[in-house]
């Protein structure tokens, strides 16, 4: 077979077939287009401001390694003026995280970025190894997820940073959309599609600059740029449900590669239909409204062509503000469901029920405040992490007796 030539430069041999539009590209053109598209996502969503300190949530895996590499490249190329720092979480899983942290340490040298590592043990007094020892492998991902979410924010605060970027890619977002669809959790579906989460009230905002990047292209980018990353599976096997969603996504991609971005787009479109959630995934009520809604209209093939105008957005925002109060009850209370489980009586029926929130807790309004125990931001009196810790500490006490 005669080698296919790159569709862009028409001189080099094509090495990549892009999943989203079947374009055949050579290595050089692929790398520059990949970077240009991330730049486009960053600028059109106004993710950063000049001089901003940004922490890159770094695991040593492919996604965060590519994110660090691309952000460094773009920061220098386009003069973003960002102060980039690597922030790693040590969950305390021997034979897994200790190896990948070595990769992050090398990345810190390779990209000339400072590195901060925060451990579950110092934050919570528990490593994941100890958690699994106590509660078993089942459901440990819930603990790890809740702890990690807070750990990244706390690590950022220690560094005086208000913005954490993570390596979530299009496959991850599609997977989450699918999972929330299958769970009937539209409120969460809506939030998961947003490129920016966390609001002006919370101290740390989150964003996913690789939201529109295929996992396949992230791996190919890492391969062709010879990036140093670590790949392994967490030794505490992941949730079966997420695994099934992931398998389904990959099978769909094989048959119809555009399916992944199509699911992301469908998720975004569905998000607009969720009352009070249309743009409140970044619930920055007002001043950062533009950043809240991903401006994906002219997104080189990866955006939705919904033809929204700024006027529509303002009207939607206005409407949303009015609807916010009315739909407060739609918030899902995951901490409640989890705390029921940790009571020992595993109630399968105790899944979050929309109307159950507030009414049963005597806390009708979800207002972001501070956890009474750890002082960390929370919409509940006691934050999710403290709830889980309470259950864990009870168990530990029992074991000691």
């Amino acid at each position, binding site marked *: 077979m005669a080698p296919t030539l790159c569709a862009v430069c028409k001189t080099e041999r*094509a090495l990549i077939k892009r999943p989203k539009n079947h374009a055949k590209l050579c290595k050089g053109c692929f790398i520059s287009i990949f970077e240009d598209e991330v730049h486009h996502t960053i600028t059109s969503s106004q993710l950063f401001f000049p001089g901003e300190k940004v922490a890159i949530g770094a*695991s040593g895996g492919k996604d965060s390694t590519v994110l660090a590499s691309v952000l460094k490249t773009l920061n220098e190329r386009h003069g973003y003026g960002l102060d980039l720092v690597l922030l790693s979480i040590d969950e305390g899983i021997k034979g897994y995280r200790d190896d990948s942290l070595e990769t992050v340490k090398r990345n810190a040298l390779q990209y000339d970025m400072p590195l901060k590592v925060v451990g579950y043990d110092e934050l919570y007094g528990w490593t994941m190894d100890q958690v699994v020892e106590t509660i078993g492998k089942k459901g440990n991902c819930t603990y790890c997820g809740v702890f990690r979410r807070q750990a990244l924010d706390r690590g950022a605060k220690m560094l005086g940073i208000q913005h954490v970027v993570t390596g979530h890619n299009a496959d991850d977002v599609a997977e989450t959309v699918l999972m929330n669809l299958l769970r009937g959790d539209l409120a969460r579906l809506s939030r998961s599609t947003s490129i920016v989460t966390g609001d002006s009230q919370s101290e740390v905002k989150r964003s996913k600059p690789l939201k529109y990047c295929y996992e396949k292209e992230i791996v190919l980018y890492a391969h062709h740029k010879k990036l140093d990353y670590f*790949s392994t599976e967490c030794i505490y096997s992941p949730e079966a449900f997420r695994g099934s969603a992931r398998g389904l996504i*990959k099978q769909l991609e*094989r048959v119809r590669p555009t399916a992944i971005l199509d699911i992301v787009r469908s998720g975004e479109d569905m998000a607009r239909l969720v009352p009070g959630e249309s743009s409140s995934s970044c619930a920055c009520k007002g001043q950062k409204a533009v950043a809240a809604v991903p401006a994906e209209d002219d997104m080189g093939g990866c955006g939705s062509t919904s033809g929204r105008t700024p006027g529509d957005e303002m009207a939607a925002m206005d409407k949303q503000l009015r609807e916010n109060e009315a739909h407060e009850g739609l918030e899902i209370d995951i901490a409640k469901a989890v705390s029921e489980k940790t009571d020992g009586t595993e109630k399968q029926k105790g899944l979050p029920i929309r109307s159950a929130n507030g009414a049963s807790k005597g806390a009708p309004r979800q207002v972001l405040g501070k956890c009474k125990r750890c002082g960390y931001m929370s919409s509940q009196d006691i934050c999710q992490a403290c709830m889980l810790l309470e259950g864990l500490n009870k168990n530990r006490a029992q074991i000691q007796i």
Partner: protein
Amino acid sequence: MTNSLEAPTIPITVDFSGGLEMLFDNQRRYAVSLPATDANGKPANISFLIDHLCRTLMKDPRADLFVLDRHIRPGILVLINDADWELEGEEAYEIQPRDNILFVSTLHGG
């Protein structure tokens, strides 16, 4: 010189990465002498190579992390001399001497 009684083989290199090396004795690169033809006398292609690797190199019982229903598991990329196998005819690509075939998983986190 190839002995006429011995089946001719094709010398190639096979690489595993992205976590797949775990299934192959934690070794990233293998020099493989691939039989030039399959059982039916057809020239060796990628499909035959995958089968050959499972029979001869796989040290791990979890073969389903590499192949599903005799096809490469979705989410594993195959690069033939650094080019996406989709550009080269996928499973039907006929293997040439000194080819480098890379299997890289996108399925593993970090």
